[in-house]
């Protein structure tokens, strides 16, 4: 069996939705061939209004692409609510 886990990172007000055992805002999650970014967002009950900046391996995923973007083992999904800085 190969690696079946990916990394989920949730930041700011999304931190509270991380699964038990998460450390430093990240957790290892099991992924299957049908686990899209949108499906994982749903699986972890992330409120739609808080899902704003969605990166896979650091690259932004447009909202319309999230249902089709499969998260492969070894990849990193990171999500933020609407934030900004300067």
């Amino acid at each position: 069996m190969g690696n079946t886990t990916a990394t989920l990172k949730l930041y700011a007000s999304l931190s509270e939705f991380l699964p038990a055992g998460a450390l430093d805002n990240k957790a290892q999650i099991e992924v299957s061939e049908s686990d899209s970014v949108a499906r994982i967002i749903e699986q972890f009950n992330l409120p739609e209004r808080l899902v704003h900046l969605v990166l896979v391996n650091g690259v932004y995923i447009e909202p319309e692409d999230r249902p089709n973007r499969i998260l492969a083992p070894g990849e990193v999904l990171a999500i933020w609510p609407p934030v900004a800085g300067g």
Partner: protein
Amino acid sequence: MAWTRQILRVNLTKGTCTSEPLNMEWAMDYLGSRGLASKYLVEEIDPKVDPLSADNKLIMATGPMTGTIASTGGRYTVVTKGPLTGAIACSNSGGYFGAEMKFAGWDMIIFEGKSSKPVYLMVENDKAELRDASHLWGTSTWHTEEQIKKENQDPQIRISSIGKAGENQVLFSCVVNDLHRAAGRSGVGAVMGSKNLKAVAIRGTKGVGNVENPAEFQKVTAEKKQILAENAVTGEGLPTYGTQVLMNVINEMGALPTRNHKDVAFESANDISAEAMAKPRESDGKAHLVTNQACFGCTIACGRISKIDKDHFSVVQKPQYHGASGGLEYEAAWALGAANGVKDLEALQYANLICNEQGMDPISFGATIGAVMEMYENGTLDEKKIGVKAPFGSAEALCELVDMTANGEGFGVEIGLGSKRLCEKYGQPELSMSVKGQEFPAYDSRGIQGMGLTYATSNRGACHLRSYTVASEVLGIPVKTDPLTTEGKPGLVMAFQDATAAFDASGLCIFTSFAWGLGDIQPQIDAACEGDWSEAKLQEVGERIWNMEKLFNLKAGFTKEDDQLPKRLTTEPAKEGPAKGLVAGVPEMLPEYYEIRGWDKEGVPTAEKLKSLGL
């Protein structure tokens, strides 16, 4: 009107304070603050003047919205020729000082000449006088504020001052107001120091009573505040997490400059992030972050107020630093942390406190330490020369060197020159991560291409606050663009530059632009000010300001060669992340940028362009 129509002119050589009417013709073309003060500066000084000579001038200016009920109307700017860059400098600050200047009845204060002894300016409404500051010289901004309030028996006086860094003419020293807000960049504090001007203290009780259409102004400012409140970024993200929330975002994108830009990601970014600031510490169980804080009239409240761990090595037996104080903001946390590979949050806060207390720009200071650490690691500098071991990641070195720089001791004097002069002195000019002598802020231009062009063309040297394309390239405001491509970026940068200049000239905070466009500030300005202030006119004002600043720099001796990034960014590809293999594409973007600006191939505005802008 919103302008008070009065300028205070202070001749430090003669010791005189005189009032004169504001040039309203210029106000109609440059609006206020950054625009109008820059107009006065370029009309009154020789662009080739030595920034630290008596012939340079320093202007503190408000905008027409400063001091009004408009949200974030608390901004003021310090405009001068910058000693760090030799370019036009305009540093913007919040807090309460700007509004107080307006309440006292002044649109701006122009300082000229040089005092023979330390003085501070005391303004009480119409009355202005220079007072002896011998007893304040050699003390911090914090002590200066406290002492001036105490000796005048008035805790409501607002003060902008320099610390020891400005007195010592550290080239990245700043002007601090309200304890931890600062006109931070380009070394404007050193200009104050060169003039023996320790502080400006103001008490104003007049308010801003000359708004053109009060009923309409009240209505439209309330509507626009509602937009800020309902916007997810300005209503929730910024007040809750502050700018520091970007640390993990930018790191995840592989655009967090690390160890003097050798790397594009910091393995310990989470340790110095907003999330870390909100987490209880292992040592005392308390979170670093205490609360957020707003500047005058602000309904966003992004500021961070924190308490350092009193058992941290940097503050043991230094109880004066144990209370709640300003920081950490994203830029400071990055420059003091990732830029040097330092992951000790408490050490970053200590360095930040010293920067506030003694008046230094933490971006340029931190980035200069990055260059020092690289030269330590490559053997150019050693412990004997620096006074401490200074490898990347050393929190101890960071804390020692911030004290030495602020106090003008030992190697700190050389750090106070900034990275460009320091690296040149030791034969490694390529290690200075700067443009026009000013150090980069916290975005790597290999991973966010628009920021490379922003830095290269910024009129005040490398800076993110002249064209924050991060909003579009990272955050999707107002529209999402691809950070890895150079395509379309010249137009994006120009649009951000001109709009930002208009925001700055108004006296409003640029952070409102996460929710507002020019179309939102236009009706507020139009209701407050005489004249017809359309959105098109504001765009033209922004473009006029940009070209005016550019002309000053050209006359000061800058050329196309100064619109470049350090070779590291254009020849050494990013090692990891989405930008892996990419370099900054400034050379390919610059010609298109010049063209759409209406400038020639050398980056000089054409006669036609200048004529169209009335320049």
